[in-house]
């Protein structure tokens, strides 16, 4: 049985000025114990999907079930089975970490003693014991997210919804949070995670669904998506503007690129990019080739495909430009 199933979800928002189709027929299926990454730019429909699946919003059309329970007809049951951690770190700023967790525990129907005990356990797991008696106002962004996530785990949910869990966090906090999420996966929790970062989906998700304009535009594993985008690319800037064409010619031959369309060259910045299926070996290859030809390198690097590359390939437009749909 799939832990999360959704079919044909439609949700339209109307305001005085315009009508926005936030969801335009989304289908999802997340097998039990797996992680699905919902990838897309702002306004693509990621958060709306999560809101429908966590019973915060009723869809205009379509249906969804979580652990076999309909999110509209059995909303109360669904709420007791899932955990939600949002992108805004929804915790009470004037309460301490311990008080926040106790409160959420009570609201998950634990008695006062059980709620206290669970709060202690979670503070321990999330490395917040030292900060437990400070109000949330004094917490860093990363600590807040950790507490927010802890709050969603109180009732040992089998299904967890994480709406952009690391957006706006520094790299260190992001890696900490990834570890915590992986530990939940190891416990067999099913996770639906939304993110704007391909890297994050790559890191955590078993399969990825790419959404844009409220519709699914691609699905598959991270590797399958990257294969579509074309994998890693190598970026070279040569020192002398007169040598760009010769350099590109040499590298195309040496890297065995058969499709000239797959390479790019910006003459004004003396920058060229080529597909580099060999990864770091290609890097060594490029340096050797150019060195042997006596061409000086100003800059060189490997670039992994980003969300922009995925979007560029799949939709022909960049993710960033789509900010407000």
């Amino acid at each position, binding site marked *: 049985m799939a832990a999360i199933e959704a079919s044909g979800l439609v949700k339209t928002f109307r305001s005085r000025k315009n009508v926005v189709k936030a969801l335009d027929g989304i289908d999802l299926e997340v097998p039990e114990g797996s992680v699905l990454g919902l990838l897309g730019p702002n306004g693509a429909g990621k958060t709306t999907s999560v809101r429908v699946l966590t*019973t915060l919003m009723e869809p205009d059309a379509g249906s969804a079930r979580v652990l076999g329970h309909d999110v509209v007809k059995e909303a109360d049951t669904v709420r007791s089975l899932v955990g*939600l951690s949002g992108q805004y770190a929804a915790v*009470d700023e004037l309460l301490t970490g311990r008080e926040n967790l106790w409160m959420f525990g009570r*609201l*998950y129907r634990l*008695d006062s003693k059980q709620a206290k005990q669970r709060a202690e356990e979670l503070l321990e797991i999330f490395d917040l014991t030292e900060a437990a008696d400070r109000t949330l106002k004094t917490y860093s962004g990363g600590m807040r997210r950790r507490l927010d996530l802890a709050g969603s785990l109180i009732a040992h949910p089998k299904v967890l919804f994480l709406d952009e869990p690391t957006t706006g966090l520094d790299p260190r906090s992001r890696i900490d949070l990834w570890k915590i999420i992986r530990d939940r996966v190891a416990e067999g929790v099913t996770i639906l995670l939304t993110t704007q970062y391909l890297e994050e989906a790559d890191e955590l998700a078993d399969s990825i669904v790419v959404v844009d304009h409220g519709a699914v535009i691609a699905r598959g594993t991270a590797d399958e998506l990257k294969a579509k985008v074309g994998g890693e690319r190598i970026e070279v800037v040569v020192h002398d503007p007169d040598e760009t064409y010769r350099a590109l010619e040499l590298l195309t031959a040496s890297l065995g690129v058969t499709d000239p369309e797959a390479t790019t060259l910006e003459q004004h910045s003396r920058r060229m990019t080529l597909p580099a299926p060999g990864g770091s070996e290609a890097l060594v290859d490029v340096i050797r080739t150019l060195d042997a030809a006596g061409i000086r390198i100003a800059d060189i690097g490997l670039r992994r495909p980003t969300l922009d590359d995925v979007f560029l390939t799949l939709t022909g437009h960049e993710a960033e430009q789509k900010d407000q749909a």
Partner: protein
Amino acid sequence: MSTTTRVNPVGRALSDAGVLAWRSLKRIPRTPDMLIYATIQPIMFVLLFAYVFGNAIPIPGFPGARAYREFLMSGIFAQTMAFAVASASVGLADDMSKGLIDRFRSLPMARSGVIAGRVIGDLVFNAFVMVVMVICGFIVGWRWHNGFAQALAAFAILLLFAFAMLWVGALIGLSVGSAEVAASAGLIWLFPLTFLSNAFVPTPNLPSGLQPVAEWNPISAIVAACRHLFGNPSPFASPTGFPAQHPVLLSLLWCLVIIAVFAPLAVRKYRHATTR
């Protein structure tokens, strides 16, 4: 879900409201500035009206300088309770913009829990403000004359009124986007409402066209009921009208009507409340 237990819906609603009220009360001492402003404003009104405007406002049928202060305090009490609207609207709008309402709505809790908890917490807060007001009233020379039991009944009506107004505030708070908007949306209509009542000016002194409006105004009903129970001067433009004859009954009716209209609306709004 081995750790969760099934309870009946009423028990669950009460327990959730209790937890959320605990939350509201925990927050009060951590925002001391709010406490200070909430009490300074009514104290300022007492002083301004008692010593500045009061001398220019005669109370028909009650001569003497102290009559106005006796008259004034019930008006101040009712106004202070009416302004409870703002604490509920600002509090809920703030929770909404911070995503806390979403969090609560994703939990298996009673739909009334968040608002009920807020209302109970704010009620305790307002009871405290009321104590400050009573002390202030005593200092400027206000007294009750019909015994402690009647005075207690008046305070109960005032708190019931605050309770009713908190549901109005809850609806406003859940309908607007931010705490800043909630603060003005919660208060702006209250100024004409309190000034078009018997709170500060005796209704016989008002233009005759406004007199019926001012006498049927819910705030006037609360104020008249309190004056009646405290034994303070309570002049009416039409002394034989229903508001003058049955002040306590009318005040209770108004409170019940407000609660009956706004409590279901607020809970309904909460069900569909969305941050974005």
